[in-house]
């Protein structure tokens, strides 16, 4: 069973601060995706990283995929209250026969206080 561990589980910071959340596994993933989920809603895809060492930027969000494709990080610069939400990482194993859904981490609950 492939597991994704996310840390921290909860994070509350002030507006304007920077933060990093982590997604780690002992397994190799062919790709990792980051989602943001608001209360009562489904997850919304932020980014997919595929290549080891890949870095992608989405405005104030920077995503990195580890060289060994076992871990990923999300860095937010100058956090804003609108960034509040549950951040989920999800891995696609690329098993033979095609991927059959995603393995999700438990998520990081992020609160940005004004």
């Amino acid at each position: 069973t492939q597991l994704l561990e996310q840390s921290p589980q909860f994070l509350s910071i002030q507006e304007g601060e920077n933060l990093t959340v982590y997604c780690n596994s002992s397994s190799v993933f062919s790709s990792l995706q980051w989602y943001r989920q608001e209360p009562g809603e489904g997850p919304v895809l932020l980014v997919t990283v595929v290549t080891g060492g890949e870095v992608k930027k989405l405005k104030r969000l920077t995503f990195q995929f580890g060289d060994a494709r076992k871990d990923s990080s999300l860095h937010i610069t100058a956090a804003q209250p609108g960034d509040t939400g549950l951040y989920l990482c999800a891995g696609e194993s690329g098993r033979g026969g095609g991927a059959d859904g995603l393995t999700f981490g438990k998520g990081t609950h992020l609160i940005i206080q004004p």
Partner: protein
Amino acid sequence: DAMVIQNPRYQVTQFGKPVTLSCSQTLNHNVMYWYQQKSSQAPKLLFHYYDKDFNNEADTPDNFQSRRPNTSFCFLDIRSPGLGDAAMYLCATSMERGLYEQYFGPGTRLTVT
């Protein structure tokens, strides 16, 4: 415009009373997934359809069934809901299996009384 629609958004059922949750998509995607998400936990894949081919996860209880009568619609049937089945149920679609984005619906919050 909504692309993955789930109805109802909130469902209350009684212990042991069968319930059906609905998902529809306007994306014409081949793959439709059902996930279960309990409070403060990660979404857990229950099963998926690739076109008409049903793929069950090994640890999905027999109490959970699914139907996909056509490309657009997929249903989750819980034959005898228990208190432990109370959760958010998420439907997702993707164009194909593999490295394709999954689009999630807003979810149905199921309460079992």
